[in-house]
């Protein structure tokens, strides 16, 4: 009897779960989500996915988009490219989504030609500069300064800091990067800009995939007298470099990109396009409410905020498309391209997109980790020039 009773209970629960989804199927906006929850970038991919999910939940609780609920079809692709492609095909052909929230360099690069053909706006967590050129990739978007602007801003900070410290001549800089598309993305721009502003790039060190030791690279840097180094890998890699630098007694000042460092590290000066969780900005109230409501025991970081910021921008795009009565790929693209100085409530810099330029912002915030806290050093504003477009 007991078994039967509990079985009946499970059936009833399953039915109860099914019924509302049938009832609301008509009034839905389907959005695909390609996340990394189990792969090599899951350390940063998981909080990002959670941020997007919470933002969608809050938007739906507040009435959705013009009375329609967003249905986020999120799925994990484990940073496997064939899985991302399979998911993409399912989202576009079977589920008929209007747009996709994607994730890293791997999936974004593999799908960039397809999203243009299929006219599906694709918001990525990859900030590679070529994606910001709509003449090549009209349906790619992201919510942060490009990787190249980030490195340029960091080089500006280096020059300033070197001058302040009473350094003579040119500051000696090294680039450390992973041997992949993400690691190499800003290098060409960095080399060029360093030469322009008078900073010497004396060393470029490759960090192999899943490296456990960076001693040999650091010793070469020591020999060349490097004073500043930009580490272009994810957080785990950066912490290994810092460990080995401490072991060797290096006095190099390290910097990193927004996927490379968090509060858990020490003395890194890096790029933070999205404010840390808990920063007193107007937009944070919504995040804190969601945090209290859905998972009060979880800890959150800037990656979680990054997911929110991206989602806030495209939900605004969906609103615009809904008002124009164009709830489809080209409609969402057009609506996003009308956003001018759109504020995410301080979660990130205000963003602007035009049909000819998808660089969201030219302002990069540089933060420094001091006593386990992220402290803002300043905002670096780059000119919106033609030469730097897509580089």
């Amino acid at each position, binding site marked *: 009897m007991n078994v039967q009773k509990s079985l009946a209970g499970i059936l009833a629960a399953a039915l109860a779960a099914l019924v509302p989804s049938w009832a609301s199927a008509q009034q839905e906006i389907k959005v695909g989500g390609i996340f990394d929850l*189990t792969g090599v970038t899951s350390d940063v991919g998981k909080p990002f996915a959670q941020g997007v999910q919470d933002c969608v939940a809050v938007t739906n609780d507040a009435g959705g988009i013009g009375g329609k609920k967003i249905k986020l079809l999120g799925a994990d692709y484990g940073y496997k490219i064939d899985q991302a492609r399979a998911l993409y095909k399912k989202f576009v052909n079977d589920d008929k989504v209007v747009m996709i929230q994607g994730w890293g360099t791997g999936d974004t690069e593999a799908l960039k030609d397809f999203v243009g053909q299929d006219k599906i706006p694709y918001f990525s967590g990859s900030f590679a500069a070529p994606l910001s050129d709509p003449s090549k990739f009209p349906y790619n978007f992201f919510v942060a300064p490009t990787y190249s602007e980030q490195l340029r801003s960091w080089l500006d900070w280096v020059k300033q800091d070197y001058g302040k410290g009473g350094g003579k001549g040119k500051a000696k800089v090294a680039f450390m990067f992973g041997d992949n598309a993400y690691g190499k993305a800003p290098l060409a721009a960095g080399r060029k800009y360093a030469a322009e502003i008078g900073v010497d790039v004396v060393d470029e060190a490759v960090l192999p995939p899943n490296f456990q030791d960076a001693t040999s690279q650091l010793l070469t840097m020591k020999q060349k007298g490097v004073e500043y180094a930009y580490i272009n890998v994810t957080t785990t890699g950066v912490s290994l470099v810092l460990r080995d630098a401490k072991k060797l007694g290096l006095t190099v000042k390290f910097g990193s990109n927004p996927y490379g460092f968090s509060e858990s590290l020490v003395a890194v000066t890096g790029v933070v396009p999205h404010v840390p969780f808990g920063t007193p900005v107007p937009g944070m109230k919504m995040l804190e409410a969601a945090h209290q409501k859905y998972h009060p025991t979880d800890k959150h970081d800037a990656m979680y905020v990054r997911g929110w910021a991206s989602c806030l921008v495209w939900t605004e795009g969906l609103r615009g498309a809904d008002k124009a009565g164009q709830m489809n790929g080209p409609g969402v693209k057009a609506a996003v391209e009308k956003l001018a100085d759109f504020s995410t409530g301080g979660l990130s810099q205000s963003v602007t997109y035009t049909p000819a330029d998808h660089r969201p912002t030219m302002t990069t915030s540089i933060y420094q980790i001091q006593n386990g806290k992220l402290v803002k050093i300043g905002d670096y504003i780059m000119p919106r020039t033609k030469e730097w477009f897509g580089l």
Partner: protein
Amino acid sequence: MRCGDFRQSYAEDMSLFESPLPRVLLAGLLVFLLVLPGFASTYWLDVLSRIFIAIIAATGLNVVTGYTGLISLGTAAFLAVGGFATAAMAGKAGLPFVVVIPLSGLLTALVGLVFGIPSLRLKGLYLAVATLAAHYIVEFIVTHWDAMTGGVNGISVPPAHFAGLALSDDRSMYYLILPVMVGLLFFTKNLFRTKVGKAFVAIRDQDISAEVMGVDVFRYKLLSFAVSSFIIGVAGSLLAYQARLISPENFPITLAIDYLGMVIIGGLGSILGSIFGAIFITLLPEMLRLATDALGSYWPSLMVIVAPIKTGVFGLVVVLFLIFEPDGMAARWNHIKAYWKLYPFSY
């Protein structure tokens, strides 16, 4: 079905089908696969195409690992060679796919021949490490030979053209991949009825006695690597045509391990094993994802927690298979067949 062994001549002993029934069933399956695109969704066509490509590559790996007994971790590297060769020939030289696919296979066979040379001296785990080196060498070359492979950013592959028609959607890709798979499976099945195939098996079973019997061990080991790499190269070529944009990130070392898993779970030294293993390993993540998606869409906040379970379940299933059916799914299939052959009058 017949409950006995009625073979009376060597020709009958060598025949592919024991009785007319399997022949009819196989023909039926082929017809089914041919008409399937009429009603399958593009997502499932994509899954099927990936399964077919996996079957081809797993069969290739089975030739060298299952039939000749040489462990290879170079599958991902050989797939990459086939894929980037296709990108170069189809993209830069603009050759038609009828030429590109076999040429990609041949080029991969050459590369396989080179990396097969250590097999003269090395066996078992040592050979596995040597092929691992092959993987890293190929990975380094495709990552850094920017002019030819596009480096880390990858390279796009133009769609295959047939009679002026671009084979760019999933349906036409399906019809390109299916015949190639059937042809290669037929080739491999027949390979092991010939002198060459029997020499491979002799080397696997006991290389010293094979040499005593007059098998030129080194020659046949190299030949085994070449045949295997050819088949894997063709799979890589099809993969490139299907993906349309390939980069070194498409061919990680974990891919080679996945393929090794396929032939072990499916059954070493069995064509049927390669097929079962490829279907199983390709479908398992899809099935687990459909299951977690179903759970996740009712409780969206669960998705972040449920997704990693997928990885654990995958590992668990593999371990359970190795414990309860170490000879692979093909062996289990034969048990089931034997059971029904005698049903209901088992001895």
